[in-house]
């Protein structure tokens, strides 16, 4: 088959991919999602354009005509002609790759962009759980590249894998951010919330995503789910958000410390909720001598009482902040899945202060919709809107996080109804119009449900809704339908495959790369099983670079990148056998936060990812490693592993775990000698044994094999 012939296959595959009906039954168009004829024609045009581009590129490559980038195609004519890489396709599936790479990959990598098993097995394992690939694992993959998928499945059972995924989803689904200030839009007076509560707000949806993935449910449920992983403290917050707009200032909650004839202590929290009378915990004492501002009892409004419940209310007569909230530590730890249903207008729901009921809740009926990642407190806090912006940012950021796509003025998909387009931006053909024509009708999905501060409106809105985004239209419906349409969008699989390309390679994959398309199709065919996507992608030459791909030729080749914060912290946790090591020490945490991490800016489809070992990055790593050394050498977390008293065993551990070079690796012995010599030289320089061992640890921690992903 000629290169052009192969690209015809690519065209067909791409066409089949885009046109194939969803295999996810829950989201079939029959549920109301209509693909308008015009949109379908647009799709055909997109396919034709992509196919034409592919064919042109392929034929140019075949005839050796110079492109703008005379990349390794030139090199491949001489050095890699037999490697099946001249068509821009990779080795195909991992199974196919197994047959090809064993005989075709240049294990030295000296003349191509391909990487040997020792490099990519280490990279993949590190990406998955921060662990060090053993010599046995490298040998297994060298003998049989297909075994990498089996290893990946094994590595995914490590607890650190969960931590890595939680970090990844937190950012990719925009659940991370400084909530201390941003949550005040939704929850006035919440600026000094209990840190544990704020952390729970951040963690809620990543934990939900983990539940979806751990139970092998379709990953597009992150868009459509109405079940969330929550704790009781979060249920308090979400119930509070349901109060009508003016209810927060209503003063009708009584708190007391000492019972009186008129204030009889409730028997339990259920009675407290019924009577709206709450006893403060015994550890809290109101001081009536302090400026006369105190009284016992006190009557509070709801905004204030929420803070009392959660332990962030500085009562005027108490110099110290209330440290023992009514919502207890246990209420922050009772994570479980709770289903959120729609509460009909006018019906009575569970009060936010009915702690006893919330502790038992398995379902919760709310006036506000809670569906998918994009209605969590954290997502809405991160994407604040206002009356002028009017939920455009909310809509755009939802589509970016769900699909990895944003509105573009070059790709206009006109919704079925467009009456909701802002007149200010409605001049057809203008750049403004091309985005607003789609965005404005879609923002009503949010505007009908939320006030600009994301609290519940007095009555749901009735603004006209219509979905139109990247060739898909769907008319009418509410925010639940918006979720269904978005979750069923044909770009869902492509978008998440691309997200993981960034995460794995620190750069995008070519979406026209046949191997990329294969991986995305495998994800879709699996009914969006996230572990399938991970397995297929991480075993793919897109990540391993075991064979050359179109992606490699069109991007920056193989990037050996600095390990960014999330990766590095997972490495520390796994290799030093101390969970959450980065958060175990305030000084270390402050330093670690100066390390770059993947971040999605507002409106950005691609993350900001530092790849370069600049002097700033290396300086930060230097400070992190020095601090870490004081914690783990002759210290508690790994006292039995790295001690100056047991130097030889410590050198083994340092090279094997901290540098990540296994004992069977030919680099192990010389590196171990450098480390042990360093220890001796440090002692000669009048360092004591602990200082010398800490220096040896820091040296290893800053070494290239520890600092980079892909060495």
């Amino acid at each position, binding site marked *: 088959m000629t290169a052009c012939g192969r690209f015809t296959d690519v065209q067909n595959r791409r066409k089949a991919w885009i046109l194939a009906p969803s295999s996810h039954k829950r989201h079939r168009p029959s549920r109301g999602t209509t693909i308008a004829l015009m949109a379908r024609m647009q799709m055909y045009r997109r396919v034709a354009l992509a196919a034409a581009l592919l064919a042109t590129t392929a034929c140019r490559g075949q005839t050796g005509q110079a492109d703008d980038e005379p990349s390794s195609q030139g090199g491949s004519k001489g050095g890699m002609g037999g490697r099946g890489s001249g068509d821009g396709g990779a080795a195909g599936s991992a199974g196919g790759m197994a047959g090809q790479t064993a005989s075709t990959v240049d294990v030295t990598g000296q003349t191509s962009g391909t*990487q040997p098993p020792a490099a990519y097995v280490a990279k993949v394992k590190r990406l998955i759980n921060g662990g060090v690939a053993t010599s046995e694992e490298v040998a297994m993959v060298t003998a049989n590249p297909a075994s990498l998928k089996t290893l990946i499945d094994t590595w995914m059972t490590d607890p650190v894998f969960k931590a890595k995924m939680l970090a990844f989803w937190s950012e990719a689904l925009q659940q991370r951010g400084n909530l201390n200030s941003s949550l005040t839009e939704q929850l006035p007076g919440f600026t000094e919330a209990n840190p544990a509560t704020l952390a729970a707000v951040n963690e809620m949806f990543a934990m939900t995503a983990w539940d979806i993935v751990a139970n092998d449910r379709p990953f597009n449920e992150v868009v459509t789910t109405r079940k969330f992983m929550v704790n009781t403290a979060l249920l308090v917050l979400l119930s509070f958000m349901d109060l009508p707009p003016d209810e927060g200032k209503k003063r009708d909650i009584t708190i007391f410390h000492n019972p009186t004839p008129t204030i009889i202590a409730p028997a339990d929290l259920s009675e407290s909720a019924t009577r709206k009378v709450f006893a403060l915990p015994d550890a809290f004492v109101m001081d009536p001598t302090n400026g006369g501002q105190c009284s016992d009892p006190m009557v509070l409004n709801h905004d204030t009482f929420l803070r009392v419940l959660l332990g962030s209310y500085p009562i005027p007569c108490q110099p110290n902040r209330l440290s023992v909230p009514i919502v207890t530590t246990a209420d922050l730890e009772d994570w479980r899945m709770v289903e959120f249903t729609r509460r009909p207008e006018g019906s009575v729901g569970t009060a936010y202060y009915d702690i006893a009921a919330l502790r038992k809740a398995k379902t919760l009926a709310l006036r506000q919709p809670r569906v998918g990642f994009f209605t969590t407190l954290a997502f809405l806090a991160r994407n604040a809107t206002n009356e002028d912006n009017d939920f455009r940012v909310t809509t755009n950021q939802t589509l970016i996080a769900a699909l990895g796509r944003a*509105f573009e003025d070059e790709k206009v998909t006109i919704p079925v109804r467009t009456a909701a387009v802002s007149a200010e931006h409605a001049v057809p053909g203008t750049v403004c119009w091309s985005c607003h024509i789609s965005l404005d009708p879609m923002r009503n999905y949010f505007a009908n449900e939320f006030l600009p501060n994301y609290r519940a409106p007095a009555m749901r809105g009735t603004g006209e809704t219509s979905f139109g985004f990247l060739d898909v239209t769907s008319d009418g419906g509410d925010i639940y339908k918006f979720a269904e349409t978005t979750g069923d969008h044909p770009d869902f699989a492509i978008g998440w495959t691309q997200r993981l390309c960034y995460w794995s390679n620190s750069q995008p994959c070519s979406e026209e790369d046949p191997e990329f398309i294969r991986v995305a199709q495998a994800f879709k065919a699996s009914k969006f099983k996230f572990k399938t996507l991970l397995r297929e992608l991480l075993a793919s030459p897109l990540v391993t670079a075991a064979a050359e791909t179109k992606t*490699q030729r069109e991007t*920056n080749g193989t990037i050996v990148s600095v390990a960014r914060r999330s990766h590095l912290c997972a490495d520390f946790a796994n290799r030093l056998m101390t969970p959450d090591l980065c958060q175990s020490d305030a000084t270390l945490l402050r330093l670690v936060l100066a390390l770059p991490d993947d971040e999605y800016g507002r409106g950005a489809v691609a993350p900001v990812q530092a*790849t370069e070992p600049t002097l700033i990055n290396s300086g930060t790593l230097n400070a992190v490693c020095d601090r870490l050394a004081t914690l783990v050498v002759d210290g508690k977390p790994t006292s039995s592993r790295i001690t100056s008293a047991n130097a030889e065993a410590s050198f083994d551990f340092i090279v094997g775990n901290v540098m990540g070079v296994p004992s069977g690796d030919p680099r192990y012995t010389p590196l171990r000698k450098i480390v042990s010599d360093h220890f001796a030289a440090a002692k000669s320089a009048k360092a004591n044994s602990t200082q010398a061992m800490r220096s040896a640890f820091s040296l290893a921690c800053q*070494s290239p094999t520890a600092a980079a992903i892909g*060495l």
Partner: protein
Amino acid sequence: MQRRNLLKMAVSAGATAPLWRSLASGLPMSWILGDRNPAFAAEGPKQFLIVSLSQGGDPLNANTPGTYGVQDVYHNPNPEMAETPVALGGKMTTAAKPWSTLPEWARQRAVFFHHRTYTNAHPNFFKVLNLFGAAKSTRGSGGEMLPSLMASEVATDLKTVQAEPLVLANTGARLTFAGRVLAPSSPSSLVQILGGAPPGIAKDLEALRQKDLAAIKAELDGRGTPAQKEFLDRHALSFTQLKDVRDKIGSLLADGAAWTNDALGQVNAAVTMVQLKLSPVIVVSIPFGGDNHTDPGLVKEAAQTVSGVDAITNLMTRLEATGLKDQVTFATCHVFGRTLSKQRDGNGRNHNQNHHTTLMIGKGLKGGVVGGLVKMGSDFGADGFDSSTGAVNPTGDVRATETLESMAKTLGKALGIADAVLETRIRGGKAVPAALA
């Protein structure tokens, strides 16, 4: 991909070790060669660049020289923004009052360049910085962002520690250099990172580790793939650079300037970074009102214009005090400007792809106004102009549709970049003699 091919070419051509290292590391040849190789000597005096970027699309353009005296332009009504005579390069014009507070010597070399950015969307900032594809890589083919383009052209002559821009603020954009993403480093974190170990045994051990990191690199070098070796080169150089900077920074940190993370702290840190010759381009972000759709009475616009000009004045003062005022050019660049007509009853401004004012201040510039306004629909846009005078002329030799590229070329020329290089790396537009000293 491009660099790997260059690396291959270098190897196959028997390139010298320094060339290999330069290609592999992205560092300027002069950094590797020192002053030994005249082939890489400067073509002319180059300038450092401190550039303020913002994806917010701040309303800096709304109250600058060149927007006054045009009917229906709605300027900020607050008293601190009153229309005030301002001398630029010896010529009188008018602007909002804060601009009159810039040091006189800075106004002599301050250019307010009116141009378009061709986009109304925040996420398109990277396209603006790429000049919509007109800014080219060193090979003249692939794209490059404007700050990085400038950095790559002046780094060699300036003998900076690193060639890529140093980013001190989150500008909202994904800034890249030769395809590699640049992570921001806040001023407060820089203090700690660059401070290093205290004198004594800790310092001695730091030096010992430096030596042994080199030994580790040598061991790994012998067994690495090209991509791995490229990383090893960069990693090693970063520690060498770190040591050099740490050796010098002590006295510079002792001058008492606060390295906070706000605009003032950023410009303080930026000046020190130039003193250290750490990078040829320092990226900061000085707010001028932000994304001010909703700004009742344009109060925030007024407050941040005052604080923004204060930050620039502080920068100029520090440059003068440190003897750097003739070596550093300052510029601003936002994703777009804001609407100039009275909209939202004077309580905010919308995006304006047709008008943006770039402020440039530097020795290579001649104070004044380049370009100006034309009525476009219900608002205004930047018009074409005559490059010899800078005066508005819709049929002038710089058309409205090439004003962005012309701004970029003018800035490049002010930094000392040769015309031929600018022609290769920036397609379209022209350097404007009226703006150049």
